[in-house]
């Protein structure tokens, strides 16, 4: 199935998604990767607010290349999400609704996503030029000293994504290869 989603995201809108579905997401997406996650944890430890409203938000794990003059953003494909696993359940408990990245997540992230009704969506790894095409605006909103790791507010239009982990615990990285292998034995 293919769904269109608009931010901010609600549990209800996400609950219909199943691992393997495709999603076209439009609205606001925030970028954050390794260093920005570290700083967000420091803010939370100090009782300070995060640089954006995390409730119903989508975070894209990306560190784009610098934009050329006249371009909105450079190449902007996903980074490996598993490096953020250590920080993610805390953000999910605060209302983070959608993670966009690539690669495996740990058991704590999966359990927290189910508990909070959140989803993890795949952008195409290594397809930075293609993923950039659906980004309409890009603005650094926190920690410009982090360079490519600074937090950016992106406006996206129909960004094409695939559901990896749905809110009910299904995982495309398990079901996808299993279905393919099953098709071979059925021949």
């Amino acid at each position, binding site marked *: 199935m293919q769904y269109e989603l608009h931010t901010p995201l609600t549990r209800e809108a996400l609950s219909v998604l199943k691992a*393997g579905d495709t999603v076209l997401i439009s609205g606001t997406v925030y970028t954050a990767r390794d*260093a920005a996650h570290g700083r967000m944890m420091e803010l939370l430890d100090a009782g300070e607010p995060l640089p954006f409203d995390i409730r119903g938000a989508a975070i894209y794990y*990306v*560190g*784009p*290349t*610098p*934009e*050329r003059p006249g*371009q909105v953003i*450079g*190449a*902007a*494909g996903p*980074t*490996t999400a*598993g490096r953020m696993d250590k920080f993610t359940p805390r953000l999910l408990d605060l209302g983070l609704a959608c993670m966009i990245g*690539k*690669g*495996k997540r740990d058991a704590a992230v999966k359990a927290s996503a189910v508990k909070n009704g959140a989803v993890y969506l*795949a952008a*195409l*790894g*290594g*397809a*930075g*030029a*293609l993923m*950039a*095409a659906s980004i309409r605006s890009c603005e650094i909103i926190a920690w410009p000293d*982090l*360079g*490519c790791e600074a937090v950016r507010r992106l406006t996206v239009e129909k960004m094409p994504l*695939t559901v990896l982990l749905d809110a009910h615990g299904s995982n*495309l*990285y398990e*079901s*996808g*290869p*299993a*279905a*393919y*292998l099953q*098709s*071979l034995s059925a021949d």
Partner: protein
Amino acid sequence: MSIREIQAAAITDAVEQLCIQANRFLPQDIRAAEENAIAAEPWPLARTTLELLRSNLDAAADKELPICQDTGMACVFVELGQDAHITGGTLRDAVDEGVRRGYTKGYLRKSITGDPLKRQNTEDNTPAFLTVDLVPGDGCRITVAPKGAGSENMSRLAMLKPADGVQGVKDFVLETVRLAGSNPCPPIILGVGVGGSFDKCALLAKHALLRPLDKPNSDPYYAALEKELCDAINAMGIGPQGFGGATTCLGVAIEQAPTHVACLPVAVNIGCHVTRRATAEL
């Protein structure tokens, strides 16, 4: 015997161009392997995914964007003739300046932290990760192979026992790919080092990733092992991006070297579907 002089500035210019070229255009042998994979892929989601990856290569060329936002560590390999003499600066400085200019002028991402624990970005993607081989002649062959972290992080090395033999090598390679799963952006390319010492084995694996996919190992024994491993990986069903399918690995390249009677090192350096490299001769 005459000594040929090579200007450091010429090395800088070459490295600058190679950094930009390698990040924007995939080598022809890898593009051809991806085309073959699209034609052969029976699983619809996998075929669609491979077609999107091909569209990305076209989009990068059209919009003068890097293929991937992880424009990598600038791994630079210099094969320097022993009858060549570099003038006007050091090789190290010339290569670093080329990386600095290429990554700035090419709008490439600066992904290097100057210290592994203090984590301060060097802001210009230096230093280059430089490997120099002294070779016969008076030439200078430079290869820039930008290496992304998604695949680099899933690479592994083991000091096997000689009694583990070729089966131990196969098991370790396949286990490495299984553990990596979707993380290294499959379809992957594997560089495998077998033999040498701990450090030389890792370098063999990295060197193996530089070899074009249409050139098997010159030793038929290792060429057969490359094919066997590639087929075994593709039977796992991981598929493009880990979504499932027949195309998990585009090629395996093994480089072997003499080792100690008590050693059997094996190293697996994983490359992603945009394993980049560009070469120039001065």
